[in-house]
């Protein structure tokens, strides 16, 4: 847990669904007629987020991401636990919460399908009591590079253009909290990069707090400073990607090249003695070290560079996907 003054506080959040199907049960005359199955979608989740922070909210299908997001959005009421956003309770100060909230779900559109994008913008501006609406729409259009799209009906936009417009609409009223669920789903890499760029730019302009849920880990690596990883409704990890790398124990590889035959048995032995080093393979002009954890790399490098001239260095880090997979496998064991 991070030690700072949190702006979004989630404490012991739990959501249970009652999975009942009376008709089917009665018709089939199954035993346990009146017993409903309780499904715990979110189980005692706690985390804090600082204002202006972009946090990736990750997990496999059914891990509880969307349920948490819907509770933070004030759509679903938790079974137990509390949510506090900038000092307000979203279930009591509903109107104030909605005024400060921005939501974008990749597969669902807020834009009016048959009207020009600017009409959706003006309607949205009126909903959120924005003064000087034309000026504001112009500013956001500049920021999200959608000026040319304002007069086009939504139905004529490509998926990438539509997502930029969706995000522009989300940021239009400068919300303090933004919930993004799969904002780049179905986009090509160019559109995705542009979305990453505009999200980062918008956050730096408005100091909005973002909770980003995505299965595309490039989104998370590009824009998030921190991740919260869920498994079966529980928080499996909360911290930076580097911290996850250290914690997960996923193996990294570094290949260090030397000008001539410098790989001495003595050096190989010393590297092997570093805690966290998995294996060392020495050749006449290079050494390949496999290790676990970000800090170990610095120790290996310090040790080698103090005694040998280094000609080349090639490093292969585990991807975020590898880290998450390793974390899941560890949790299963």
């Amino acid at each position, binding site marked *: 847990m991070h030690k700072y003054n949190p702006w979004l506080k989630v404490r012991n959040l739990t959501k249970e*669904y009652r999975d009942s199907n009376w008709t089917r049960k009665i018709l089939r005359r199954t035993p346990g007629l009146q017993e409903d199955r309780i499904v715990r979608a979110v189980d005692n989740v706690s985390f804090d987020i600082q204002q202006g922070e972009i946090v990736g909210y990750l997990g496999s299908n059914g891990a*509880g991401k969307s349920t948490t997001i819907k509770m933070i959005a004030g759509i679903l009421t938790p079974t137990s636990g509390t949510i506090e956003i900038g000092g307000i309770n979203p279930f009591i100060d509903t109107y104030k919460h909605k005024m400060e*909230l921005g*939501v974008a*779900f990749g597969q*669902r559109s*807020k834009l009016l399908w048959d009207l020009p994008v600017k*009409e959706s913008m003006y*309607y949205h501006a009126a909903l959120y009591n924005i003064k000087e609406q034309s000026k504001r729409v112009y500013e956001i259009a500049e920021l999200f590079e959608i000026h040319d799209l304002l007069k086009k009906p939504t139905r004529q936009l490509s998926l990438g253009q539509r997502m930029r417009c969706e995000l522009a609409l989300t940021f239009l009223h400068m919300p303090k909290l933004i919930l993004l669920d799969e904002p780049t789903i179905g986009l090509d890499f160019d559109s995705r990069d542009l979305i990453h760029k505009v999200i980062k730019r918008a956050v730096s302009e408005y100091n909005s707090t973002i909770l980003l849920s995505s299965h595309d880990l490039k989104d998370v690596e590009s824009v998030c400073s921190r991740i919260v990883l869920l498994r079966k409704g529980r928080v499996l990890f909360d911290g930076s990607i580097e911290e996850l790398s250290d914690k997960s124990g996923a193996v990294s590889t570094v290949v260090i090249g030397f000008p001539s035959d410098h790989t001495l048995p003595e050096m190989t032995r010393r590297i092997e003695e570093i805690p966290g080093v998995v294996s060392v393979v020495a050749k006449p002009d290079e050494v390949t070290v496999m290790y676990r954890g970000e800090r170990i790399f610095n120790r290996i490098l310090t040790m080698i560079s103090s005694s040998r001239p280094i000609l080349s260095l090639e490093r292969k880090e585990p991807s975020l996907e590898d880290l998450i997979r390793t974390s899941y496998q560890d949790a299963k064991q």
Partner: protein
Amino acid sequence: MITAGIRQGILLSFAYRKAIFVRLLGEVALIISLYFLWTAVYKSSDNQMQAAGVASYIVAARIVSIFTQTPAWGFFFDAVKKGTVILDITKPISLFKMHLYRWLGQKLGQLLLFGPMYVLIYCLFILPNIPAFEWEQIIAGFISMMLAMMCAFTFELAFSTITFFTNSIQGLNEAKALLVTLASGSLFPLDILPRGLQIFLSLLPFKYIVYTPSKVLTSSDWLDYFTQGVYLQSAYIVILYVVYSFIIRLALQRYESAGG
């Protein structure tokens, strides 16, 4: 917020102007057919109602039907099916107000686009058949129609909440459309039905959606229809709103469309 919603509705009706125009052409054909059909029926019978009165009622009822008509699939079906209702819920406006302003805007847009045609139909088919032209009757007819629109809106909104509980509403929707058409008096005056059935229909809201405002617009006893109608229409608006509020609360509590 109200003007923004109404503006959105007007723009939407302008965006669909060709579709509305084609539908209105069909409506005009239906009005003309019904006019001559009912005129012929009443001329060949010794019913106490005047043929001209019935015919003008039918024309008025069709015009009122156009203005009280709600979306064919209800207000929520599309949003629930696509999952966008979740975005609507997060907006700082209730679903009731959001749909009401947009719907009123669409009706206003329709009036702006095809108003002259309605005036022409009124002058051709209704005005010659009413006993005496009175501005008060027109104003009362307008108020009655506004209340009828609110009645139709609250009923449709309450009915649309079924979408949250079922996977398909096609059958229910078709049954509802048939019931509203027959019980509201949009195809024939309810006076021709047996007395018992008339009393039964008085207990349902549909009569006040088309029959009442049409009678206010065309009958010589328009004041009676108007005063009685105002109370009952207002009562139904309140009742249907309460029903809607109750069901939508339950619906939103169990709504889980967004998935994992």
